[in-house]
């Protein structure tokens, strides 16, 4: 079962580029142009990894992180951003982001690694949960 990624960025070309890239790496990819669209998807659909921009009209990345922390607390969103202030970075940390990565994403490997880490973490939990089920009478 492959992981489902949600890519949130107001720049269409970046959404396209990232979804192409991760599709080619065998992930299922969904996209949203802002926080609000992302929330609509999160409400109706299983999502394993969120990759989000910070500066977006109509619910920005930080607000999205806040929503996720409240409604999908198992998610560890990855923040991609052109510019991070110290305050922003601390908010990301507090709101449970996995990491933040600077645009222009000179090396996509950093992003892939972050996705892999999340994948590992999820797999680990799935194993644990299976073990738990197995132990039940």
């Amino acid at each position, binding site marked *: 079962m492959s992981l489902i990624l949600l890519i949130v960025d107001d720049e269409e070309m*970046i959404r396209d580029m990232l979804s192409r*890239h991760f599709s080619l790496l065998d992930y299922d990819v969904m996209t949203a142009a802002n926080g609000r669209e992302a929330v609509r998807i999160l409400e109706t659909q299983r999502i394993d990894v969120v990759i989000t921009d910070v500066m977006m009209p109509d619910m920005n990345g930080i607000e999205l992180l806040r929503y996720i922390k409240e409604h999908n607390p198992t998610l560890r969103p990855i923040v991609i951003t052109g510019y991070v202030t110290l305050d922003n970075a601390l908010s990301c940390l507090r709101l449970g982001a996995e990491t933040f990565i600077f645009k222009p994403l000179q090396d*996509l490997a950093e992003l892939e690694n972050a996705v892999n880490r999340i994948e590992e973490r999820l797999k680990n939990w799935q194993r644990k949960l299976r073990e738990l089920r197995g132990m039940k009478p």
Partner: protein
Amino acid sequence: MKVLVAEDDRVSLKVLERFLEKWGHQPLTCENGLDAWNLVSEQKDIEMGLVDWMMPGLDGLELVRRIRSSERSTPFHVILITAKSEKKDMLTAFEAGADDFLVKPVDPMELNSRIKVGSRLVESQKQLYLKNVALTKAVTEMEDLAEQRARMLLHADRLASLGVLTAGIAHEINNPTTFISGNAQTLERCWPLVERTLKSKAESTPERDRRKIDLVLTEIPKMLSGIRNGVERISAIINGLKTYSRKDREHFEPVDLNQCVHRALILCGNRLNHLEAEVVLELDTDLPNTRGNAQKLEQVLVNLIVNAADAMEELTGRVRPRLVFRTSFDPMHTELTVTDNGVGIPPEKLPDIWNPFFTSKDVGKGTGLGLSISQGIIEDHKGTITAENAAKGGTRFTIRLPKAVPDSTDDREAGAS
């Protein structure tokens, strides 16, 4: 006081001379007007004149007129002495520029009093003159200061608007760069698949069309690396600009400049080792702390070291690279100099090195932002950074920073200004 005595009658002249000496003055005597004129023109410190009206050649009245119309900046008090006693003669004398008037025969007591009055006048005129000079000087200094301040403001203003502008530009360029870069990377990953497919297709293609496929096979990787290279350069510029537009709130605390030097050297160690450079540390062990942000100051130092390494590398083989760090302090400031023995900077280029994008380095090697960012950082610290050519060739950078105040260990301050 030096007193000119101009009198054609020798006896009177002698008498006046005696009296003046007795009263503690320094008389300079002349027997005619022309000599008197020459004397007064030469010696600007003669401050008083006892002048006989009636003299052969240049008479007293004419002498006074000349003196008054000359551009004498020091005071000169003239007492005209004459046998004439009509009221209208007196008026003529004052009209000509005499300050006082005595009728012959001169009563010594009266003369003495009049000379005293004259001295007082001269003295107050002198005071006035000195005050005036001081005032003029102060005014010029104030004007200089105002001009300097205006320049600084203009500079700060330019930097500030440049900061805002560059932050905007960096942001705008960032997004397109992201998808150029990302797409190129994805394409590179896909390439092996495309390559394999194309190769196998080429085998079943007639010779004629095969040439084109071969060309594509060899050229596309190059095109991809071309894109990659471009993106890397743009990214470097964007990163520079981001630092340049510093919006972060900065954290100032007591910083040990000597430590900063050590840490910066660790960061640049490889580069200097590679050059086999001799690193000389003349660090003052008593150096007090500096008020600043250690990370930012290290960033400045790294910039300076990299620049020095570049400058010294250009002379490889000719001189052994040598980089000297020296720290010192005075009651208010700490100071750090970094001196290299590299190619140096042509004097006419010295003012330009601080400009963003000024670089003498090859395209792709330098963005020309290093020093302008460094200057921004030092200015945020309320310090100064200057460059000069070192005596024995090479360049010296001097950074002066405010000393840390002992008890203010934690003050936050807005960095953007």
